[in-house]
């Protein structure tokens, strides 16, 4: 992962170290978050069975806390794994043109996209989400249903999501600059490997190595 650019105090090298730290963090988060999909399946089927059993029991066996838990986990999966997904090319591209380009040209497109689209959008989302999240905390917002879960923690995750995306965006931009400076980063895993037989994204996007 280390660049060829020499010198201990080289700023590019320090930036790359910063980028590697962000990558490691999102790898770990992604690795843990994946387990929530299994938990979702378990809670989801328990909810289905409880709702069905309610018909025969005469009293409601469904639990609003469990019903909330189900979509809380769904939300955690995509909010917290979005940055991990950015690193591993989970976000679908229309690669009609992109896949024909050289690694350098791709790095240019990715660098522009990261700086002009991803980073500003993450900042915008942080900016517009801050007031409602703060409001949710101040009133300790909770589910309108009896026994439902508190809402303010899950709303806070929207902020965490875009903060992680912002960080991963910075990491990707650093790596793309590394490629453009010819620092031996052409093999970096943020650039999808070009496979002449490989399917185009989304379904056939290169399989993400295990995170964490």
């Amino acid at each position, binding site marked *: 992962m280390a660049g060829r650019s020499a010198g201990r105090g080289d700023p590019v090298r320090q930036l790359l170290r910063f980028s590697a730290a962000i990558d490691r963090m999102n790898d770990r988060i992604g690795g843990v978050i994946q387990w929530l999909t299994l938990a979702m399946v378990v809670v989801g089927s328990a909810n289905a069975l409880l709702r069905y059993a309610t018909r025969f029991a005469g009293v409601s066996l469904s639990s609003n806390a469990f019903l909330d838990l189900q979509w809380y986990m769904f939300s955690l999966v995509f909010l917290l794994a979005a940055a991990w997904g950015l690193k591993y090319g989970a976000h679908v591209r229309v*690669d009609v043109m992109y896949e024909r380009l050289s690694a350098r040209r791709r790095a240019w497109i990715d660098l*522009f996209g990261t700086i002009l689209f991803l980073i500003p959008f993450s900042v915008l989302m942080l900016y*517009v989400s801050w007031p409602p999240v703060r409001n949710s905390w101040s009133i300790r917002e909770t589910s309108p249903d009896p026994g439902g879960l508190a809402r303010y923690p899950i709303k806070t995750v929207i902020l965490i999501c875009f903060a992680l995306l912002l960080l991963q965006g910075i990491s990707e931009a650093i790596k793309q600059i590394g490629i453009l400076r010819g620092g031996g980063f052409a093999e970096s895993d943020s650039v999808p490997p070009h496979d002449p037989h490989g*399917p185009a994204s989304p379904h056939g996007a290169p399989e993400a190595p295990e995170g964490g």
Partner: protein
Amino acid sequence: MSGFWGPVMFLGALALIFTGYPVAFALAGAAMLFALLGWMAGVFDPILFMAMPERTFGTMSNFTLLAVPFFIFMGTVLEKSRLAEELLETFGMLFGRFRGGLALGVIIVGALLAAATGVVGASVTAMGLISLPVMLRNDYDEDYSLGVISASGTLGQIIPPSIVLIVLGDQLGVSVGSLFAAALLPGLALTGAYAVYAVVVAWLRPDVAPAMKLEERMSTGALVRRVLRSMIPPLALIVIVLGSIFAGVATPTEAGALGAVGAMALAALNRNMGMETLRAAMRETTRLTVMVVFLLIGSTAFTLVFRGLDGDLWIEQTLSGLPGGAIGFLIVVNIFVFVLGFFIDFFEIAFIIVPLIAPAAVVLGIDLTWLGIVLAVNLQTSFLTPPFGFSLFYLRGVTPAAISTTSIYRGVLPFIVIQLVVLAVIIFMARP
């Protein structure tokens, strides 16, 4: 003003998408760019962006979309449990002794897998790996074999349960259960049309689809046991998932969760439910859930600004004022979706295009559930159209280099024609 900003923003967003940067963020970028331009021109109020957190929260608590990860989880587990392999080998043996039988077997297995999983890539890949060598070894025509495999493997798009239908149901605001029910007949009709074509080919052109060679056949007793054994897992899942939805016992989301558990149980019975299967299912589910939801968030930002610039009025006026009324609308929308389908995926079409055309459809009195089916059949075609059909990419990925890509394109052509005929029948003869 609406006649200027709408088309400009639409084309601008398409241009940004085609740079190849992840679509979700390219759409968000288009939203911010045109918000800025609109604001400078005094026609857009950036305060509209304050609606984004509430929209995001709406996506998080969306019970319909929750079905998506469940069905992906179920499909990945089944893929790893070698369900497709087992079925293909068995049906190949069963029908192989007849002329055209191998092709018929692939079509039936394609429909069964579609009803059991709803994920396309897995079926095409499995068929390309297992059935293609058998067909070629038995002197099947190469183009024809490739066409049968890509078309049958794509049936998962239209036969319920299907991720496409879940997403379309969410975007059209109709019940996914009723969309599933409405898709059953067109899905079976398409399967039937493929089967008829396979029989006709076998009858007219025995050289293209001959019977299996004698030494590859199996004894009848062993074959019957094998058919029973390999049919039970998918049938059990179809009964659990589709049965519970159609009987009104479970919502599609609940059925998806139960189906995922069922798939793990079946994989465990086949001794295929190890850590590797579990990890693959969890990773794939996370990856695709992130992809789908972020595409939705990016599209939401796009739509927000597009509406802020009155682009929705432009679309509605254009589409509802077409000559021919509802039929004119359907023809234009279908051609538009068909052409877009050459380049972009059904998720993008469902998230960007469908919310824009639905209001015009309501104005024209078109039933939205039925419109969903029309769009699903149309999008099914886009999976098969060269050069960017996804099924063709999957198949290309697993076929030997000696097989040319043009051979895949040639093979799939008759099936595209069949699909367009079925689409036309649905539009002109089955409109409620």
